[in-house]
């Protein structure tokens, strides 16, 4: 008589345990904490880090070649719905058109530091996305993430603006329209900063917390094969 009772009791006890136990604190994803001690990250007000990267057309871009011009860098990953959204909603194309009308020449470059897929896939996929939008924006490949880490790029998109003297004057969000409801009508921090630069005004705010997916930097061991940057035939 006691055996079935003991069995039932054990079953009840095992099944009741999750209910009476304390709520489980959500466990963070397994990862090492970020340690930026050894990495010097660019600060607003300082000279922007120099870089030399190749775009999807095989053309090399050096930051120093754009001295005398305002340079807008967008950390880019077309797989991120937020980054994809600012392009497809028309926000970035409209912004680029507005920047072209400025007196000072403005150079707009996308930088792709994604390394969670093979490099060829990052290149082709990003290039196709821009082609479909009929954009010739250079997408600079930063597969090892060296340039991303120098700038401290955290999200896609994360905008950096460098003035004509090569000084980093802005780091942060492209706009405050998190839900992308305003589409191409959204006011952008980029246009605001370029307007302030042209007017000789202080760039303020020079930092607005960036939103979006995290930059998919290369982790230990990397993902996929590295390959030649640039697409043949262009």
């Amino acid at each position, binding site marked *: 008589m006691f055996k079935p009772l003991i069995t*039932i009791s054990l*079953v*009840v006890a*095992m*099944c*009741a345990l999750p*209910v*009476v136990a*304390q*709520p*489980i*604190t*959500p466990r*963070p*994803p397994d*990862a*090492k*904490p*970020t340690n930026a001690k050894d990495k010097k990250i660019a600060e607003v007000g300082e000279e922007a880090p120099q870089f030399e990267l190749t775009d999807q057309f095989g053309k090399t871009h050096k930051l120093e070649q754009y001295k005398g011009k305002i340079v807008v860098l967008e950390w880019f990953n077309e*797989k*991120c*719905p*937020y980054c994809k*959204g600012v392009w497809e909603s028309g926000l970035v194309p409209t912004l680029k058109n507005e920047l072209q009308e400025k007196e000072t020449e403005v150079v707009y470059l996308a930088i792709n530091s994604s390394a*969670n897929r093979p490099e060829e896939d990052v290149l082709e996929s990003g290039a196709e996305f821009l082609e479909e939008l009929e954009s010739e924006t250079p997408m600079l490949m930063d597969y090892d993430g060296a340039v991303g880490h120098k700038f401290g790029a*955290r*999200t896609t998109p994360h905008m950096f603006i460098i003035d004509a003297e090569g000084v980093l004057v802005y780091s942060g969000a492209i706009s405050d329209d*998190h*839900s*992308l409801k305003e589409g191409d009508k959204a006011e952008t921090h980029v246009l605001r900063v370029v307007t302030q630069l042209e007017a000789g005004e*202080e760039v*303020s*705010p*020079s*930092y*607005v*917390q*960036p*939103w*979006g*997916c*995290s*930059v998919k*930097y290369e*982790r230990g061991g990397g993902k996929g094969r590295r390959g030649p940057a640039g697409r043949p035939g262009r």
Partner: protein
Amino acid sequence: MFCLATTTITALLLGIPPPQPNPYFPTHESVSKDTPGHATTEVRTDVGWVGPLQTFNVIVLITPDPEWHVYWKNPGASGMPTEVEITTPDGFVVGQPMFPRPSIFHGEEGVTYGYSSAAAIFIPVTAPAILQDGQLEFEVTTTWLACKKACVMGEKTNTVLLSTNKVYHGPLHRDLQLSRWIEALPRQLDDLEGGASIVTGNTLHITGETEMRPIRFIGVERKGIRFGYSSEIIQNGDSFRLPVPIHVDFSAIKGDKLIVEGILMFGRKSDDPSYVVHLILDSTSNQHEGIGN
């Protein structure tokens, strides 16, 4: 399911009330793997009906799919804040949302703040002075970014109907689910023994008494305010002072008032105490000091 059935049957035979599913953490049956936006939202209010000038809460319960997470109002190193927009009938005033204590996620991309399980966001709404008897509709749109290894944007509009009474305020609901959600909300810093906050120069000082550890502060970054990392807590018995470096820039905002806001958290569990830190800094004040809470 087998466990629940067995336990329930056994409990009934023995005259013991069967265990209830924990409403705080969704069961697998209630969460779809293919949920659009990888999270579900449900909306309710905390009153039976609403009367003139009554303040009640619209409550959005957002539940990420298993292994996914959504973000707090400051997502941290990456992500996007979960936002709620309420379309109300004329005359109703919507207040600032109150988020439950977030979890802290440490990733290679940095530290982020959010929720990997159900989170109830309370949004206070105040009724106008004149109401008619009837029923009104409120439209609640929630937008979020849900992430696992990749991220997905989500948006859902829920409708909630609420009865109105032209004379009497409606009673507060008293149910276990609501009580648990309220418990998860941060309290006012006033409620903490010795709780206070003040900004002097470039430092936000938060004081109080607790024997709990660790003690953490997460700021809500806005234009004109940036928070540094507070590595040092000054402790004397149960009393503590937490200095948080801040950078204040009034030129970055329109107007002369800046809000310094964040959450003070004790312990590590989602039901450990947390407190709202909220101060208003006035640029016209000589010392740029604000005293809050």
